[in-house]
């Protein structure tokens, strides 16, 4: 099957998912991100790679944080950034997703950064751009439903590589609501492609998708079992609406079983790092002492996120 992210030469033209991306491309993105990291430390935090290009932030679902990081990344590449809060404008008037795209293409958009509540929405956009013959317009998936959040997955890989140097022989535990998490899926595909030793998915059955082991992970229902001897712990956010109902009885019970505390973290390797895609629920999935502790790398993740998004946008614009 044709991979819609790649062009006929196997180069990345859209970033839709870490699933199906070859190792070389993942590594290329991380390497280029590395070179962009120092741009953010300069007095003049800009490079001219996207000068004259228009990047449209198309957020059908609200997310100030993610949108801001994309905006900063695009601006550091000297692009013109247009933020559209689509949730509140055109679609509310009945315009379809593809009508919106047609209009923005007519405004000479060069790149769309898309966040959508429905899994697969960016694929529909890419398909449409193909149909109307606009293969020069690029799409970056900034999170679609439960499916993927590839730039988050990549910045997680960047963070792991930064602290652990090499992916081989690492044990990575992903803890929490994997069922609804696009971050978890993007992490799992990237980690298995980059060849880590073991990926563990930790959570109760109600929060784990069916046939998860087919994605190459070991499923653990017990936190102790899941954390034992691991090098990296990725905690996932538990959405408020899922804290009490049919998935979980209460946030309190969840924390008692799956919350990361200094005591449970002690089961991991002493030099294990703790990651979280944010925003955190302190006291629900993670104890403040851990979140603010020496093993947490949650704020560096944010910094690396800018560099990774700059890398992705510059690669797409060049292909």
């Amino acid at each position, binding site marked *: *099957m044709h991979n*819609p992210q790649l062009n006929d030469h196997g180069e990345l033209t859209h970033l839709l998912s870490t*699933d199906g991306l070859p190792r070389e491309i993942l590594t290329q993105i991380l390497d280029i991100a590395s070179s962009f990291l120092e741009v953010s430390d300069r007095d003049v935090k800009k490079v001219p790679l996207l000068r004259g290009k228009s990047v449209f932030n198309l957020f059908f679902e609200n997310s100030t944080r993610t949108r801001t990081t994309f905006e900063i990344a695009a601006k550091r590449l000297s692009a013109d950034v247009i933020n559209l809060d689509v949730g509140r404008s055109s679609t509310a008037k009945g315009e*379809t*997703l*593809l009508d919106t795209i047609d209009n923005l293409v007519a405004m000479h958009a060069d790149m769309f950064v898309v966040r*959508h509540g*429905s*899994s*697969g*929405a960016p*694929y*529909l956009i890419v398909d*449409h751009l193909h149909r109307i013959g606009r293969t020069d317009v690029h799409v970056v998936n900034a999170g*679609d*439903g*439960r*499916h*993927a959040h590839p730039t988050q997955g990549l910045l997680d890989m960047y963070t792991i590589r930064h602290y652990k140097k090499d992916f081989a022989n690492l044990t990575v535990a992903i803890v929490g609501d994997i069922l609804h998490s*696009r971050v978890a*899926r993007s992490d799992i595909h990237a980690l298995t492609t980059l060849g880590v030793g073991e990926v563990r998915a930790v959570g109760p059955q109600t929060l784990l*998708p*069916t*046939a*998860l082991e*087919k*994605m190459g992970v070991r499923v653990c229902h017990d936190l102790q079992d899941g954390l034992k001897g691991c090098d990296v712990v990725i905690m996932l956010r538990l959405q408020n609406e899922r804290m009490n109902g049919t998935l979980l009885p209460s946030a309190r019970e969840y924390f008692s079983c799956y919350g990361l505390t200094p005591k449970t973290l002690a089961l991991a390797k002493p030099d294990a790092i703790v990651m979280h895609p944010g925003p955190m629920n302190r006291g629900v999935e993670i104890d403040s002492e851990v979140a603010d502790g020496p093993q947490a790398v949650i704020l560096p993740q944010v910094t690396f996120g800018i560099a990774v998004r700059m890398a992705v946008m510059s690669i797409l614009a060049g292909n």
Partner: protein
Amino acid sequence: MRDDLNTSTIHIKNGRLIDPKNGVDAQSDLFIVAGRIAAIGQAPANFTPTRTLDASGCIVCPGLVDLSTRLPGLESELSAAVAGGVTAVACPPDTKPPLDEPGLVERMIRRSDALGLARVYPIGALTQQLAGEKLAEMASLTRAGCIAFSQAKQPIFDTQVLLRAMQYAATYGYAIRLQPQDHYLARDGVAHDGEVASRLGLAGIPVCAETVAIAIACLLAKETGVRLHLARLSSAAGVALVREAKRNGLKVTCDVSIHHLHLSEVDIGYFDSLARFDPPLRSGSDRDALRAAAADGLAAVCSDHTPVDEDGKLLPFAEALVGASGLELLLPLTLKWAEEAKLPLLTALARVTCDPADILGIAAGSLAVGRPADICIFDPNEPWRLTPECLRSQGKNTPFMGYEMTGRVRTTLVEGRVVFEI
């Protein structure tokens, strides 16, 4: 058109006659007089054909009978039916408005009769407005022409309503069709709860949504003695339950859609909304079990024809409308299945002719002398490529678009009239 009936006499010569109902597969001529099959093999006395159809290299079989055809536009869809060799269709009640009023049923029959294409057999709504709360007027609807009752895809939340509906239908010997899917277990789901949905982040519909509903339907059917037909099985576990119920003596029938015989969850690919079905496409082993059920005659095969306009599919997967256009693909996809499964045509064609006719209880699907001459003549070897232009249906929505098909309808007759030919 109807005036020619008594005078038109047709000789179909040189064809290979396949009539599964009567176990016939032989090179034989067929003679039609006054809209009925007058003779097979030897011409009847004093026979002078007003028309001779040369079926050399072709198969002559009963017109196909489709258990589920949605008819958003009567003329376009019934033209599509006869172009696909389908001469009788059962229309589910989820029309707009639903078929819960005798007047609506009479109107549908009158309008389709006037077109003189495929015959239409309406399925009445089991409950008013298909709301699953109050019984529809089943006796009046039957007098108006309904041949069975169903909820189409609408749920009955209250199991007592289902029990009462079955009791009432059983009183008069009416048949009930249910598409077995527990509404609560399937809630929010858009794809089979398995590997592909997990990977794509699509909410899953578990197999137990089907098995729980089958179990309830079979238990209540046993209790009430109603004639039960389970529509669109999708899973191996569902097939196993129906097999067991039949073994235990329950008079239950079932069907599978032609799409589910060929496709599985992997055909969703990268969120292809054309592969969104209800029930969902399940795993490869589920598909194998459906094929086995169709091969051994447990299940009939239908098109589950659901035309959807382009806008209804140009949406993210979970928001796109379900279903595919299937009338014009029922025959070629049945032939494809027969070839892949190495089934005799006599067996495969039974699933789309006499078996569904028996389930519906209609006089169709047979080439016996004296029967209405509803006939499909097709070239089993002619290749063709599926393009939007070659579909007469309003719905161009099919995951098989662009595929090479084998087997093409040459002539379709309804009551001895040629209603389609190329």
